[in-house]
Structures are given as structure tokens and as C-alpha cells.
């Protein structure tokens, strides 16, 4: 470098970097942290579109869409567990895949830690609802494909709803339908069903899954910093909203039911 240094030319800086493109247009309509919530109240959730039975080759399936979170779920089985010893209770196997185009950055189609962490959380929400004692030696496979991702919390909550609907559609015996709702703590307010921007701006996020029919909670997952009192308030708010979601799930299953 220093050997062909030419002082007659305008020399650039020694090290240079490609510019970092920031979407910095002063768009007044865009939500920014600190602003009040746009287009809905803190306790409102995004509209849900839920359709069971879209994947015809699967035993049961569901497709769910809440604005920019889009998830397809297919349930296969119960089928015979292979390569394991005799198990008295069935196994619930949850797998989550991100479509390579589901996030801002391309996700290479390989299994990574985040896929598994979401699968573990959805498994936790569902496992107590399925009557696994009726499926000895069998495995029930739940496959979720995240087509568009708008926040991990939203994926876990929406994925749980889709998976439970797909299980009901697959005719798998369950104690009750599981619904799930996310919340984020924004300042002192609790915002339900946050999208990605809101969840990252919030101090803490919480996802709660419950069976509204039996009034029991199956999963709680909280992260970030929150006072215990606010945590309880978050859980209460989520559980209330889960009942609304429950009626959406019920409606979609009823309208999809065809007596034979």
C-alpha cells in the first residue's frame, strides 16, 4: 500500500467499509419505540386468520396468519415409534422450520438452535393437552413451517394455536384446545400480541399457553426484566385474551367439521 503512495492524488482513508444502509426515512407512520401503539389498543391482538385442513395429505393441518406472522402446521400419525424400546405413553414430536425467506436475513435451511428452542416451547405448551396414554408405542409428529416471521414470541404463541388446531383436526384425543398469547412490557403498559419491533423494544416478553376449557396453564415463558407483580398482571391479561383466541379456534373447527 505505502509503496505506491501518490501524493498528487486524493487518497482515500486507509481502511474503508461499505456503507451501512439504514432505513432512516422519517416516515411518520412508522412505529418507533416510545410512541404509543398504532392502530390498536395495548390489550388488542392482531386479527387472526385460521384455517384447518389445508394440507390434504397430512392427517390434520392448520394454517394461521396474524398480520405478518404466517405459519403452516401439519400433523402426522400416530405412527409406530421406530428404534425405541417399548414405551407406554405416546411421544409428541414437534419440529419447527423457518422458511429461508421468512426473516429479513436469509435463513439457510439447516437446523439451528432457534428452531429447536421454539419447538421445545411449543412442545411444552401442547404436551399436557394430548392424551398420550392412549397412544402406546406411537409417535405423533407435529411439523410447523414458519413462512413469515414477525418476532419469536409471536411465532411461539401463534405456532401453539396452529398446532393445537391441527391436532384437533387430526382427530387426536386431547384434554382440551390449547391457546397461547404473548405480551410485552412497554414502559408500565402491557401490550398484548406484540410484533417483532414491539417485542424487541419492550423490557420483557411473556408467552402464556393455557387450556381455557379446563382453566389450566400449560406453559409460561418469560424473558427480560419485570417486577413479579407486573409478571402476574401479564399472565392474567394473556389468559383473558386466550379465551378470545379459543373462540376463534372453536369457530374454525366447527365450520370445518363435516359429519360423515
Amino acid at each position: 500500500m505505502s509503496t505506491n503512495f501518490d501524493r498528487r492524488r486524493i487518497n482515500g482513508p486507509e481502511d474503508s467499509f461499505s456503507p451501512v444502509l439504514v432505513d432512516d426515512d422519517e416516515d411518520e407512520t412508522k412505529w418507533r419505540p416510545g410512541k404509543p401503539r398504532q392502530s390498536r389498543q395495548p390489550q388488542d391482538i392482531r386479527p387472526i386468520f385460521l384455517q384447518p385442513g389445508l394440507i390434504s395429505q397430512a392427517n390434520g393441518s392448520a394454517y394461521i396468519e396474524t398480520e405478518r406472522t404466517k405459519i403452516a402446521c401439519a400433523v402426522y400419525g400416530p405412527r409406530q415409534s421406530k428404534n425405541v424400546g417399548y414405551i407406554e405413553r405416546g411421544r409428541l414430536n414437534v419440529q419447527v422450520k423457518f422458511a429461508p425467506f421468512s426473516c429479513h436475513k436469509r435463513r439457510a435451511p439447516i437446523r439451528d438452535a432457534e428452531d429447536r428452542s421454539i419447538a421445545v416451547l411449543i412442545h411444552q405448551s401442547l404436551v399436557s393437552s394430548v392424551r398420550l396414554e392412549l397412544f402406546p408405542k406411537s409417535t405423533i409428529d407435529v411439523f410447523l413451517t414458519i413462512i413469515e416471521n414477525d418476532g419469536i414470541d409471536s411465532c411461539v404463541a401463534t405456532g401453539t394455536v396452529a398446532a393445537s388446531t391441527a391436532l384437533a383436526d387430526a382427530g387426536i384425543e386431547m384434554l382440551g384446545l390449547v391457546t397461547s398469547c404473548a405480551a410485552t412490557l412497554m414502559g408500565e403498559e402491557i401490550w398484548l400480541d406484540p410484533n417483532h419491533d414491539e417485542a424487541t423494544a419492550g423490557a420483557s416478553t411473556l408467552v402464556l399457553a393455557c387450556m381455557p376449557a379446563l382453566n389450566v396453564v400449560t406453559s409460561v415463558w418469560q424473558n427480560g426484566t419485570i417486577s413479579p407483580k407486573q409478571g402476574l398482571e401479564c399472565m392474567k391479561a394473556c389468559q383473558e385474551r386466550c379465551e378470545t383466541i379459543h373462540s376463534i379456534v372453536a369457530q374454525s373447527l366447527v365450520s370445518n367439521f363435516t359429519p360423515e
Partner: protein
Amino acid sequence: MSATVSLSKSEKSYIRTALGELSPIRADGRSLLDYRSIALETGVASLANGSARVNIGKTAGEESGSGTEVIAAVKLEVEGVLEGEGVDGGRLMCTVSCSPAAYPHLSSAALDDLSYDMTIILNQCLSHPSLHPKNLVIIPKRRSWLLTLDVIVLSDSGNVYDALFLAARSALCDTKVPKTRSVQYQPKSNALGEQDVEMSAEAPASIFSTKEVKSTADFELADYWDEGEPLDINQEWPVCVTLNLLSAKSLPTYFLDATSQEEAAIPLRLLLLFSFSPSGTRLQSMRLMGDGEIQLESMTQLLESGENHARKLFQALKNKLQEEDFRRNQKALARFDLR
């Protein structure tokens, strides 16, 4: 997140019935809210910036090998923000690896999954922005520290999550970030002279401006490498309390510090991570694990009692860490005197 020990139906019911009795009985004679003895030592890895070893349930007089044993160590690496993977302000990454010796009956795939699950729980809690240390910056927008916290599970006889977070907190409290000084290069004078500039938080107006070459280019270590300042966070690193829930009824009974057998016998566990600082008690993470269920009403009570247990644990750990600090400094002084 499956139990690591497989028990038969009758073994499970045996343990459950004994725990559910009016005067509960545990195999090792503890009461429901008793911990096993916890041993802690900091500074166990000399090449790490901070480290700790935790053992829960080591029987007295026995050599290592019994109880749950966990080692945590913190390493700091320099990262470039613009050219590397680094992020302005530094990064904190946690990894848990389970030794095959701790889980001899698990296949390597299952072991990987278990390590993954523990990693995620540790990482989601500790690398949350609310706990981010402020002093991981070396040169604003240029260089930063990558803090990696590696935890190894050497043996597991139950309650591994409490042990993980005890070790993590101790190692992080033990960590010293080396002091750095920014070094500036001034091309105008053509003298290739290096001039010390105190590290300042003033960021250059733009990295593209060529007129103002005020930005610092590199850094050097200020002192000896074993000296440094502790991590600077707004709150305290949290401690974990696992409440093992016996029943899903409205008045849940729970017990602390389960052994592996007890863990395999119970349907549900509630992981609670609390951080206590003068500004108040904060819940840093909360998670239900297992195939049981719970009523929301009972969560109020569980959170309350979890907070009390966590506070006691937190206080005991704080005292122990101070003691450790004192012991090591004493030792160092004594060694210095010998020379």
C-alpha cells in the same frame, strides 16, 4: 427437556406418595424446602477472565464425583464491529455443554439436544439487553469485547438449572474486564507518533468523514492483564430457583433442590430467575417445564415463595462470593510475602 433418569411407574408413585404425605419424606432425609450442601469456588480456571465451580449435594468426606457439579468460565475476546461479527457495545454469549460422563446413558444426539436446551435457557436469560454490561466497549463503533460464558456440566444428580445459574453468576461476578486505552494515529503530522487518548464515549460524527480524523484507531492494554474492572450492569446477575411442583391443585405443594430421581417423578417444574438490587426485585426469567399443568391462581403464591427462596439464596451467594474474594486476595498476598 426430558428427565435424564428413567424410572418405573412404581418407583415414581413411591417417590410421589412419600413427598405428598402430610409429613413428607425424602430419600435423603431432607425436608421439602432444604437444599443439599452447596460448595462454591471461584477462580478455578487460571486462563479465564472469571470462573467458578459449583457442586450441589457432595457428600462430606467423599471425593468429587457425587452431586451435581458445574464449572463456568468467562473468556473475553476482541471483536471488530465493522469488519467482524461484533456489535457496538459488545456481545454476551452463553454456551452449556454437557459432559457425556454426566449422562452416560444418553446418545450423543440426545446429549446435544440437552446441551442445546440448557444453552438456550441460559442464553435467553443472561444475554437479554436488560442485563447487558456497559463496559464491553473498547473503542466505540470500532472494537468491542465478546464475552463468552461457557458452562460445563460435569455430573448431574438433579437441580442442574440452579447449579448452572449459581456458577454463571459467580463466574460473571468474578470476571475482570481488562482496562484498555485508546491509541490514536495522526497522519497530519506525518510523524507516525502515537498519542495516548483517554477512552471517551464520544463517538465520531461519521465514520465517512475524512476531514476529521479524531476517531481512535486502536487500543492497548493499560495494565497487567490480570487487573481490570468488574462487569458493569444496571442490575445484579440473577439466581435461579427451581420449584418442583407436586400437584396441579389450587394449593400447590412444591419442593426445592430435587435429586434426579425426584425430577423424574414429578410432572412439572417452575424455573424462576430473580435479581435483587436496591432498586427492587426483578423477575428475569420464568419458565414452566414438564407435562403437567397449573392453575393461574396458584402462580401468585408460587412467585411469592419463589422470591423468598431466591432472596435467601442470593444473599448466601453474595456472602460466599465476598468470602471467596477475600480468600483469594489473602492467598495472593501470602504468596507475595513468601518471595
